[in-house]
């Protein structure tokens, strides 16, 4: 009887506790990880690397054969050079890194991790997860107060979601003799939040135009264009010109066209959940980013979404119109498809990241020598969200380059060995490694530092043509000094805001909705998202974006 009573009592208590704890929410807490220590740090040891010695990846532990054609560079003199790192003894210590799979960022993490281990005696463990899992894994871990990583590889547009979980990178790494000291201010700004550096900058990105010189600079093509349109051929200054040229040369026989490849107008990213929203941002930027409006590109001063204003709608209409001159299958191109398509000679134009540029300039590219870079096209009018009228830009064309997000890395506040994590990232990004990684397309490392923006580095190091390289460097310098730029929506819920854009733009591209109707729907979703996340919270974070825009 007594036992039965106990059993019944237990049968009552267990589910009650279970359900009440569920209702009270004690199973998951929103604990933010408390800042942990820096770890024991390195002991000092004798250098095992010769000062100023040559860095040669073929002599390093990680897949040396894969780097047979990689450049060889002299070790630097900065704090995290091979020589200085080899004097740090991390034996018995370990850090864990969350990274994407090789090659993009996953490979250089392995490569430099293995070398760091060899130089310091420490242990760098890399946990590779698919790129799509990088965000949810971090979000889940940080929200539940469990952070098993000392370094996380991420994208800079997530800063609004994660900055509170990331350790502030000390100023010594971004100034003086630090490895990131020569990084352009533009990128230092992107990697910062409220004046504090949150990302260790291992990459930097922007979107720009790539065009075929065997058409744009060809006399016969110019005559053809004149005959068809009555206009003079040149690098397109506006998206309207871009569309006109792309449609005119769709199906044209370009002088340097690879055999068997049909020539189309434009290769763009159009696949809904494969970065298509970034292509859209390029298309709308010059129509909607008004240099005279200082209250923001994405929202107005009252946090009313601007994503359906006439500037955005005009950009989307251009994007939709371009579908007629995409290559076969171009309506389902993700980033990798865009890169491959332009690299194999499918089209006259392409824009977005550096990768298509690198691919087109490789020695084995069928279009090598026939490609140049330029700033993305502008617009002949720009929407003013304050006056609610179109403005005519000074000089006739409004330019608004999109400084797109790229790879980055951070150290979670919860890491228990921050010093080793910092030393590893600093070694990863040292001058020699950075220089060599830049020359290996698959690493995902792109130019970001003043020394990267010299022609010699690319012409002598990689055999690129001087004219092509100069066009690229001019473009990057143009972006670095531009006064009217568009940045990502670096606020909490960036993924949701961009997801809504992708949904709407996809409907418009598929002809299921008009551009205006599609973007009205996006704007309505944005209001919902604002309400869910909290308008004040998003507004506070958005001030960081406005600050970048107005810098």
């Amino acid at each position, binding site marked *: 009887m007594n036992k039965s009573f106990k059993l019944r009592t237990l049968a009552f208590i267990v589910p009650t506790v279970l359900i009440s704890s569920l209702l009270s929410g004690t199973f998951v807490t929103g604990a933010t990880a408390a800042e942990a220590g820096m770890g024991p740090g390195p002991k000092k040891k004798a250098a095992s690397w010769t000062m100023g010695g040559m860095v040669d990846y073929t002599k390093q532990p990680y897949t040396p054969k894969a780097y047979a054609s990689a450049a060889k560079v002299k070790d630097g003199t900065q704090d995290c050079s091979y020589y200085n790192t080899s004097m740090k003894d991390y034996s018995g210590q370990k850090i864990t890194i969350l990274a994407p799979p090789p090659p993009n960022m996953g490979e250089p993490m392995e490569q430099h991790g293995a070398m760091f281990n060899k130089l310091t005696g420490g242990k760098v463990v890399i946990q590779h997860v698919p790129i799509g899992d990088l965000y949810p894994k971090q979000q889940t871990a940080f929200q539940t107060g469990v952070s098993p990583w000392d370094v996380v590889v991420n994208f800079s547009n997530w800063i609004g979601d994660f900055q509170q979980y990331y350790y502030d990178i000390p100023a010594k790494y971004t100034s003086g003799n630090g490895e990131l000291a020569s990084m352009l201010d533009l990128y230092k700004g992107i990697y910062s939040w409220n004046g504090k550096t949150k990302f260790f900058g291992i990459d930097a990105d922007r979107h720009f135009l790539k065009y075929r010189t065997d058409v744009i600079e060809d006399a016969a093509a110019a005559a053809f264009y004149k005959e068809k349109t009555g206009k003079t051929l040149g690098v397109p200054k506006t998206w309207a010109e871009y569309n006109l040229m792309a449609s005119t040369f769709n199906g044209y026989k370009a002088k340097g066209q690879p055999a068997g490849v049909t020539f189309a107008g434009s290769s763009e990213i159009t696949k809904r959940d494969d970065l298509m929203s970034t292509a859209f941002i390029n298309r709308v930027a010059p129509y909607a980013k008004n240099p005279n409006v200082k209250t923001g590109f994405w929202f107005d001063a009252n946090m009313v979404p601007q994503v359906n204003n006439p500037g955005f709608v005009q950009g989307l209409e251009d994007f939709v119109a371009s579908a007629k001159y995409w290559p076969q299958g171009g309506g389902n191109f993700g980033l990798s498809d865009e890169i491959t398509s332009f690299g194999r000679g499918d089209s006259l134009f392409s824009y977005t990241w550096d990768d298509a540029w690198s691919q087109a300039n490789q020695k084995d590219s069928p279009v090598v020598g026939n490609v140049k870079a330029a700033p993305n096209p502008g617009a002949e009018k720009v929407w003013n969200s304050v006056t609610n009228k179109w403005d005519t830009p000074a000089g006739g064309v409004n330019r608004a380059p999109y400084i797109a997000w790229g790879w980055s890395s951070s150290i979670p506040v919860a890491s228990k060995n921050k010093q080793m994590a910092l030393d590893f990232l600093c070694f990863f990004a040292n001058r020699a490694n950075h220089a060599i990684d830049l020359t290996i397309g698959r690493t995902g490392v792109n130019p970001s530092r003043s020394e990267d923006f010299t022609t010699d580095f690319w012409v002598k190091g990689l055999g690129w043509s001087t004219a092509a390289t100069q066009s690229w460097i001019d473009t990057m310098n143009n972006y670095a000094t531009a006064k009217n730029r568009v940045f990502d929506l670096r606020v909490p819920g960036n993924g949701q805001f961009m997801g809504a854009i992708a*949904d709407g733009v996809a409907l418009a591209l598929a*002809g299921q909705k008009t551009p205006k109707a599609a973007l009205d729907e996006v704007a309505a979703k944005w209001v919902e998202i604002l309400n869910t996340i909290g308008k004040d919270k998003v507004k506070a974070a958005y001030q960081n974006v406005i600050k970048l825009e107005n810098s």
Partner: protein
Amino acid sequence: MTSKFYKRLFLLPGLLLLIAIIIFPLLFTIRVSMANWNVSQSGLDWAGGANWARMFHDANFWSSLFRLLYFSFITTTLQYILGFAAAMYAWKGFASRRFFRVLWLVPLMTTPSVMAIVWRSIFREDIGAANGFLRLFGVDPIAWSTQIFPAGVTITIAEVWQWTPFMFLILLAGLLSLPKEQFLSADIDGATPWRTFWSITFPLMAPISIGAIIIRLIEASKIFDSIFNLTSAGPGNATETPAYYLYTRGLREFQISYGATMGLMYLILAILTLTILGQILARVSKPRGL
């Protein structure tokens, strides 16, 4: 008393397992659906029915459900017809049937992601084999993934290819287990093969067919891999199903509570639909007057 106690004790491991793998996750999901867990709000606060209200107004979710109905119906019907035909063929016997039985299972043994990547290569509009084949006959390339109707066809082909062998396997097992007497009688009475099929084979196979169809419908309702790899739910949202929609909202955008809400609604609807459908199929196909 002691005997009762021991009986209960023996039940305990099973009960605990049931709580751990079914009851707790279900209760937890219900609780999560009544919270605001998202990118900026972690943990289980109390949102009441806000997510449920939002879901009832979410046209994209409901349209994805209707699209799923269409895909499930089309793919399962085709799989059943083809699977039954193949099973009949194998049942009646032909040379190398063991070899062909194994061959039939290859698609089933292929992981859905690998299958989807193979089909993606085949249906690539620029360099894919399907358009290459059509070009041999002077047929213009088809926009397999960038136009609404062909995109649906692409998904259907991939799904039918992968899951028809499952139908084949279940139906063949059913055919092999049928009693011989009715067939002997029909043979003696001079029934034609067609008449034998409609009056004997098909009715006798009804219970097995219903089981196979229900299992396939459950699987088909979770369709994700082929859509993720082949069309990314496009063009527009033309191939978006609830599983994909849930993945996007719940995991990619980290709307955990809203994802949980949609998951629960989806579960409720699936149970209701399949129960009703099972009942209807059982009544319609009940063997009569054998």
